[in-house]
């Protein structure tokens, strides 16, 4: 760690986002600052890699034009929301185009309205929801839990993604079951694994884990578990105790 506060160039301890650092990976939104390597946090660092500071960045908001049919969908959605007296800027937090996929980040209080509009507006007509997935960004303070919906329009042959975030301290997101009944089990699964409470769900109970299970297993602060095993005389640590490079 001795070189981490070196004098040449930017100081990663002070400014991990500085663009002239080797760990910097382009544009985007920082969700975490990764320090060190190999997952080793205690003990002597003889490799020098312990001083590595790298900011983890997800693709950030995109400016128009989004390209292809993305603009059309965005225009239609904004227009339809405006007709309902809802300012698009209030409902749509940001729009991301990455890897040929269109993502709308939606404010959670407007999720139900946006989903209903996406389903019912003839120009949008996203009639099929493929369920909800969630991601737990443990270090993204205030927006740890993300619920991710993929909506498919068979009419127009399109696919978009909705993303909604909620803080760990208030893990509430409105349920989409009134609009897409298929999300019943999906939301139960997401509640089971992440602890996101989907308000308005008809029966939000655990679905995979036993009813009396403690904790929500796919959260990042929930350990994987497992035990060390002996193989050919060597102790192989449990999977979550092994060296990691992430």
């Amino acid at each position, binding site marked *: 760690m001795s070189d981490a506060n070196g004098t040449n160039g930017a100081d990663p301890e002070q400014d991990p986002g500085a663009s002239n650092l080797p760990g910097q*990976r382009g544009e*985007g939104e920082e*969700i*975490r600052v990764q320090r060190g390597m190999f997952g080793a946090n205690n003990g002597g660092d003889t490799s020098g890699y312990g001083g590595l500071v*790298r900011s*983890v*960045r*997800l*693709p950030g908001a995109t400016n128009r034009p989004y390209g292809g049919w993305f603009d059309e969908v965005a225009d239609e959605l904004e227009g339809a929301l405006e007709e309902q007296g809802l300012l698009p800027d209030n409902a749509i937090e940001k729009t991301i185009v*990455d*890897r*040929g*996929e269109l*993502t709308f980040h939606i404010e959670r209080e407007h999720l139900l309205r946006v989903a209903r509009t996406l389903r019912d507006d003839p120009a949008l007509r996203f*009639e*099929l*929801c*493929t*369920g909800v*997935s*969630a*991601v*737990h960004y443990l270090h993204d303070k205030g927006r740890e839990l993300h619920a*991710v919906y*993929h909506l*498919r329009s*068979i009419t127009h*042959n399109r*696919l978009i*993604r909705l993303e909604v975030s909620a803080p760990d301290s208030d893990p509430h997101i409105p349920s989409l079951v009134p609009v*897409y*009944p*298929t*999300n*019943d*089990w*999906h939301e139960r*699964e997401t509640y089971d*694994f992440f602890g996101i409470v989907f308000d308005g769900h008809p029966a939000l109970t*655990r*679905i*995979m*884990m*036993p009813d009396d299970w403690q904790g929500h*297993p*796919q959260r990042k602060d929930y350990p*994987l578990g497992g035990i060390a095993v002996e193989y050919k005389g060597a102790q192989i640590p449990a*999977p*979550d105790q*092994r060296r*990691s*490079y*992430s």
Partner: protein
Amino acid sequence: MSTSQASPRETTEGTVYTVTGGDWDEVVQSAAKADDERIIVNMGPQHPSTHGVLRLILEIDGETVTEARCGIGYLHTGIEKNLEYRTWTQGTTFVTRMDYLTSFFNETAYCLAVEKLLGVEDQITERAKIIRVLLMELNRMSSHLVCIATGGMELGATTIMIYGFRDREMILDIYELITGLRMNHAYIRPGGLAQDLPPGAVDQIREFVKKMKKNLPEYDKLATGNPIFKARMQDVGYLDLAGCMALGATGPILRSTGLPHDLRKSQPYCDYETYDFDIPTADTCDSYGRFLIRLEEMRQSLRIVEQCLDRLQPGPVMVADKKIAWPAQLALGPDGLGNSLDHIKQIMGTSMEALIHHFKLVTEGFRVPPGQAYAAVESPKGELGVHAVSDGGTRPYRVHFRDPSFTNLQAMAAMCEGGQVADVIVAVASIDPVMGGVDR
């Protein structure tokens, strides 16, 4: 209930408690006192006709099902969580075990998502794509065969079960020849395939196509026109288009309503748009229609398999990018399958850099740029979607599988309520749920 339900007993292993159930007399008496015939029946999780460990909770009034619910989770193995602790390449070993009847679809969907994250979709070689399609279509047949075979067996049609498993066996033999395993292959890898087709594989597949063309009409002769089969299947497990859309049902269930929605046509992947095949539909919205669709899809799969075989040209099966491609090819040595001897000679004898590269890629894995991607394939059961998130590391940050069995199984209540108990079996069989995929 009885007072001493758990009596302790000392053994050499410590105290053992013998737990006995409740007092059945009381249960029977209270049931006899009730004035209606409404009872709640637990079907499963160990019932043979529930496709593994599916638990059906049925409220029945006489022979009529008034309410039906599913209990799932008995086969939950935490695959999605486990993926977060392995490299991206090791992930295929896990995902292949989700819906164990559609291994190649799980692997392909996962690899398509990883390749999308990596941005190497355009670099996947022609041969790798053709072999992926070839294996997926063989897999579609083997999955449909199990569905038809077990579905038939649940009706008491054991011959169709024997036929189905007989034909599936031929496909499993092909898998074994190509991947070394009958199930759980981990053969399709991010960037391409684990290795090329072995010698003799093409001949064996051609032989299979010939046999299968002879065998497929047997299902028609046995079942399609069979009055008992039709009487059991027709108008059972009804779910119309509006129901499918609301409940997110895809695959044969959706196509049995007459909507020819198939991702192979609407959102082609692996060059499906260049193959010549039809999407069969039915307009009956019932189990019989789904059976006919599966049968016809097998014929279409045979067509695609033949086209794949005609297209196969020698070439690489992995991307050229050495930062992603697995460094070694497998070869059969005296002690079994392992890294090829040439590769071992090179890394151990001549090139230190090659050894370092091999070590780094195998132990550490490749890094995937941060972001998220969704890739979907048309599995035999419907839309199999993979939502993969990377934080720039060598391991997935999050992988979620949208398994069609999971989603379609929700339609069970809509299909069964109001029907007969015996029709529940038929309806569930027509959904074709595989609990490995449902519970993951």
